[in-house]
């Protein structure tokens, strides 16, 4: 499910899969269960572009980010950094870490509370071979890049002395220290206050636009993905269910799950009283056979419950993993106007 031309990609993933084996709680001798956290995900992170991955809790988006950061080893699949294949067996190399950096959701939990900001910034620099004499200068310059001015005010502060928004900027600065070409941001704004969220989003956008970083932006908030993304990917139960260039899938959602996500966003400008997915069951369940979304899907047919759908092209670079789009014309157009379709259904029943 990829359509981006590979040569320009900084980091490419092909068929990335991760299964976790778990025991049934309380039953030591029972058969182990396999949780398919991420299943066959391919993507290209391109210089100067933001790729947004959207999905609810448990959709596998964080595991995907950790695989791309080489913190979690994939069960299968391939990774290419600047076009050359990465051996997935061993540990993450220093060179890989210098190219691909991860920013986590909770800045309070991801900074060491007993060290000042200076320590968090200088340590990666020293590990990556900067000279002791220049680390102070580099740390200052990286703080300026994330708009923490003047740097002196922040270098000797401890994490608890900073606000969430400032700390998330420090956390991004720490990732930028080693001059990576790829930045993976896992829900970077969900723990932050409203008034600072836009600041972080604009910072990420600036890094992509002006410094040509390839950015993976992971979120459950599809509106913020729309604000940033040059490519949008929607994940459900470890699978990519819909993807498009730009934000086509947000403006014209095709997959029922994407429609559910969009209808869940508080949106005062939409028609009041219309609850888009009242028909969709909302609790997170995953079907073992067939389409993973079928148990929650208001459009599920007998075929959905037995056969997992492949991705169907429904527009320029717009793919949907749903049987509704097997017949490209007709159905997809109908689905693109979810409101009208729902009303039509209501009159039928």
């Amino acid at each position, binding site marked *: 499910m990829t359509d981006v031309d590979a040569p320009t990609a900084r980091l490419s993933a092909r068929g990335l899969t991760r299964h976790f084996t778990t025991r049934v709680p309380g039953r030591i001798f029972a058969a182990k269960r396999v949780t398919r956290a991420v299943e066959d995900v391919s993507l290209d992170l391109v210089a100067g572009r933001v790729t947004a991955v959207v999905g609810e809790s448990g959709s596998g988006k964080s595991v995907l980010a950790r695989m791309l950061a080489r913190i979690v080893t994939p069960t299968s699949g391939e990774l290419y950094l600047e076009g050359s294949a990465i051996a997935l067996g061993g540990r993450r190399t220093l060179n890989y870490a210098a190219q691909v950096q991860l920013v986590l959701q909770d800045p309070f939990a991801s900074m060491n509370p007993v060290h000042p900001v200076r320590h968090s910034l200088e340590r990666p620099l020293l590990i990556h071979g900067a000279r002791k004499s220049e680390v102070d200068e580099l740390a200052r310059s990286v703080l300026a890049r994330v708009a923490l001015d003047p740097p002196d005010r922040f270098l000797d502060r401890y994490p608890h002395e900073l606000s969430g928004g400032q700390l998330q900027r420090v956390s991004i600065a720490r990732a930028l220290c080693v001059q990576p070409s790829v930045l993976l941001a896992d829900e970077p704004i969900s723990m932050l206050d*409203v008034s600072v969220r836009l600041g972080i989003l604009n910072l990420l956008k600036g890094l992509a636009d002006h410094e040509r970083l390839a950015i993976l932006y992971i979120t459950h908030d599809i509106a913020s993905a729309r604000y940033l993304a040059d490519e949008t990917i929607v994940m459900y139960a470890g699978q990519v269910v819909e993807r498009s260039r730009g934000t086509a899938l947000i403006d014209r959602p095709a997959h029922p799950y994407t429609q559910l996500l969009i209808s869940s966003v508080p949106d005062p400008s939409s028609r009041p009283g219309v609850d888009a997915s009242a028909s969709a069951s909302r609790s997170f369940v995953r079907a073992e056979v067939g389409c993973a979304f079928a148990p929650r899907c208001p459009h599920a047919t007998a075929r959905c419950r037995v056969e997992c759908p492949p991705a169907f092209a429904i527009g320029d670079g717009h793919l949907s993993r749903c049987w509704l789009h097997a017949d490209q014309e007709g159905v997809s157009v109908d689905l693109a106007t979810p409101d009208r379709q729902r009303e039509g259904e209501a009159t039928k029943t």
Partner: protein
Amino acid sequence: MSASRIDVGNRLDRRGASPSREATPSARDFVLEVSDFSVHYGVDANMVRAVHDVTLNVRRATVLGVAGESGSGKSTLVYALTRLLRPPGVISGGRAILNVSSDDDPARVTPVNLTTASERELRRVRWSHVSIVLQSALSALNPVRRIGREFDEVLRTHRRAMSRRERRRRAEELLALVGLEPDRLNRFPHELSGGQRQRVMIALALALDPELVVMDEPTTALDVVTQREIITELAELRARFGFAMIFITHDLSLLVELADEIVVMYAGTIVERASAGELYAAPRHPYTLGLLESFPPLHGERRELTGIAGSPPDLAVESVGCSFAPRCPFTMDRCRAETPPLAPIGETGRSVACWLHATPSPVPVPAALSRRWTAPVGPTAPGVTSR
């Protein structure tokens, strides 16, 4: 539901009954009346004025939304109102009257002054008449107790007459109200998902059929799909049981959908109060405008948003003039010298604390605010206007 204390008929009576014998007319209309309410943390030089001169009323069976960013005093306000505030927090002024309707005669309303109530009075009022749902369900639930014990304890304390079996049945009913299976009663909090835990909290809050439920950011830690589920459920529960609600969140767009009336708090004071529709269609305070513009829209062309520059003021420092002036794009000389009062504007009973709207208005209305004003109320325009 027959054995339960939640009695729909009873509840309807309570709202639409004949005039009460002793209470004033407002006491029947409002479940909570707060006037000139102030809360401080600490004393002397280090004193932080967390909530300052807040006046608000919660009408029966309606939703009052409280919006604001971190540190605006919105949580402190409700902790103080419910007398859950711990030292060094002190209520330093004002009153909060909870109009409690009596159990045997719903038409009779007794005012209880929450600011001066004794522990015994509070014990009678809390949970049965006013209950609270906190932001982090994981830290609000005891990690080493099964869910069922939480329900059992509330009912054992407040409903002495109930037998063990009745309590269990009641707990199962309450879980069913929020869409959870009865077997969850045997689970520990860590075995439930975030959304399920928050549902348990809501079921617990409704256990004794309160008249007022306070929700302190109940959905902030959840993802959008779960948030939508819980909001939908809350609307259904409210339609069924008719309780009033104070809903605190920083997500103004969520409040616009959910609330009847919204107050926007900044630096411990109310800066704007309006009905949800009016506030969205035509924000009058620059801070409200900033909050609304902080959420990327789902429709319309993509455009650069700036949010609100700067950060909230340090409440330990006594400031002169409007507390929002340093961050406000429309600041005038007067804003830095004088604090604007919360004054009514227009005919609809909304009010705003901003010199831009002082009469006679000496300043033309700034373009960014007026553009929204001209937008029609309703589904069409607002989010689409481009700069």
